[in-house]
């Protein structure tokens, strides 16, 4: 029998073993020695997570990450900021907080990429040569495309625009909370282009409606959801569920309506519709602008020529995210020209695939990982409830917890995951640990 001392020692050893086990389990085959020059454009979710993974897989590689932004934004938190549930700084950290020490950071904007001569030009006039390029700059919110609208209007005269960043999300909450207090007509929009997290405009609508109901003012308000598309969500089974929820919550969907211009003085929004322009009066207007790739991508030879014309998403293989014409170029995140998922969840699934194919290519092998289009959206329907919607390229639901967490049910557990675990999982992903 163990005496007390032996027992304590054994317990401590078991604890240490448990602590070490994950490190052993995660270890890949040893790092590959290479002198490859890798440039990653963008230190957002995709670029940062990939950099942290590559430094563990490659020995001797020169990895350069180019991004002018000093701040890193946890974008999934913006909907919470715009509903007054989190402060603006909840989503803000420093870019350098997350980058490994053996990666060089160039804090300049990229102005041109030449995929033939394999160079990236930055705004300071420097030209950087690469052997392998990962394009992960995110996307551009084209606010100028909406006539009469500019970002300085956000927060006043009932105008919100939560995508534009933490300050604008906080100002969106100012405008939305005034709408909740005073009542009237709320018009919630989304763009005709591909977009970041197609669930976010829905979440904003649901949250403001829920907060209005809890404030006891719902009877003095009308909610309109204006979408350029014929359905409320890209995945048919989810669109149907949202349609039913809108019915229950008295939110009126209007289809084939694309926001064209805003007259903030008169509080009127004009929409392009199949039967000509249509004007709508609002007391609160949520603007989600058209979205496209950054200029340097549009001006390069990297985008699809015949798909998403004018939006500039990179022509990559949807399974490997490797460029179809320039095999030494990969895309990750929002800028990738794949049919689904400009979300952090997509990034989490895409990064290990790009890591695998890039490291394999450097090593002269073929990669084996496949990206199936997985993305997920904790679709918040009330403060305290969400649907954990997960799907793939084929519009199949792919629940992580089948039989336990129903994807189309409004659940507290899904809200808990969004509130407690999501940012933590995101941060762990940035560090290349999840």
């Amino acid at each position: 029998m163990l005496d007390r001392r032996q027992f304590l020692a054994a317990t401590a050893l078991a604890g240490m073993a448990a602590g070490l086990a994950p490190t052993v389990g995660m270890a890949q085959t040893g790092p590959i020695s290479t002198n490859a020059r890798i440039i990653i454009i963008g230190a957002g979710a995709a670029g940062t997570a990939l950099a942290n993974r590559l430094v563990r897989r490659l020995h001797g590689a020169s990895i350069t990450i180019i991004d002018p932004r000093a701040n890193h934004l946890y974008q999934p938190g913006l909907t919470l900021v715009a509903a007054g549930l989190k402060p603006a700084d909840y989503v803000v950290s420093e870019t350098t907080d997350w980058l490994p020490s053996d990666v060089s950071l160039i804090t300049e904007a990229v102005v041109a990429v030449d995929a033939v001569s394999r160079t990236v030009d930055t705004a300071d006039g420097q030209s950087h040569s690469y052997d392998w390029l990962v394009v992960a700059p995110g996307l551009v919110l084209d606010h100028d495309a909406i006539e009469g609208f500019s970002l300085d209007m956000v927060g006043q005269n009932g105008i919100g625009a939560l995508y534009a960043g933490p300050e604008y999300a906080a100002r969106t909450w100012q405008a939305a909370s005034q709408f909740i207090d005073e009542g009237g007509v709320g018009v919630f929009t989304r763009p005709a282009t591909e977009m970041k997290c197609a669930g976010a405009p829905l979440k904003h609508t649901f949250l403001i409606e829920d907060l209005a109901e809890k404030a006891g003012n719902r009877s003095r308000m009308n909610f309109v959801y204006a979408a350029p598309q014929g359905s409320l969500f890209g995945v048919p089974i989810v669109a149907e569920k949202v349609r039913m929820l809108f019915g229950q919550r008295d939110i009126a969907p209007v289809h084939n309506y694309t926001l064209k211009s805003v007259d903030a003085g008169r509080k009127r929004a004009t929409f392009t519709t199949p039967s000509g322009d249509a004007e709508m009066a609002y007391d609160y207007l949520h603007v989600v602008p058209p979205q496209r790739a950054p200029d340097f991508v549009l001006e390069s030879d990297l985008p699809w020529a015949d798909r998403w014309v004018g939006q500039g998403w990179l022509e990559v293989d949807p399974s490997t995210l490797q460029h179809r014409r320039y095999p030494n170029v990969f895309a990750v995140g929002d800028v990738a020209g794949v049919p689904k998922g400009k979300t952090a969840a997509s990034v989490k699934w895409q990064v290990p695939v790009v890591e695998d194919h890039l490291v394999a290519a450097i090593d002269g092998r073929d990669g084996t990982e496949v990206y199936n289009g997985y993305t997920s959206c904790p679709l918040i329907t009330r403060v305290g409830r969400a649907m954990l919607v997960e799907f793939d390229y084929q519009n199949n639901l792919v629940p992580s917890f089948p039989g336990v967490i129903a994807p189309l049910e409004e659940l507290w557990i899904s809200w808990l995951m969004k509130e407690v675990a999501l940012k933590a999982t995101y941060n762990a992903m940035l560090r290349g640990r999840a």
Partner: protein
Amino acid sequence: MKELTLGTMVAVFEEIFGRGLFWAMVAIAVLVTLAYLFVLIRDRSVSWKKFLLAQLSMPVGAVFAVLFVQGVTDSSFADIGGPVDVIILLGIALVGAIGMAILVYTLEALIGSRRTQTG
């Protein structure tokens, strides 16, 4: 979740609480558990007098745990939306109850009160 390994879980919990606080909490939980085992081994039996107070404290721990989780997540009982939510709620309550019971039993055994000092 793509790979729900122990390593991922540890990484996520480190991010939730911060690395220092998380491991401090783990250390406290391990210490209390070890102290509890120490008391059991030292006394060679469960003291039903101590266990009575521990049992009485269980509902307090359960309610505290549930209210704590609701408080930090802006949610309430009205948000229970399905069977899995009830299971999670009961799970949180159970963890709170057991944690509280072990803590109270151990504290009483180590520090002692006049009522239970005689064993």
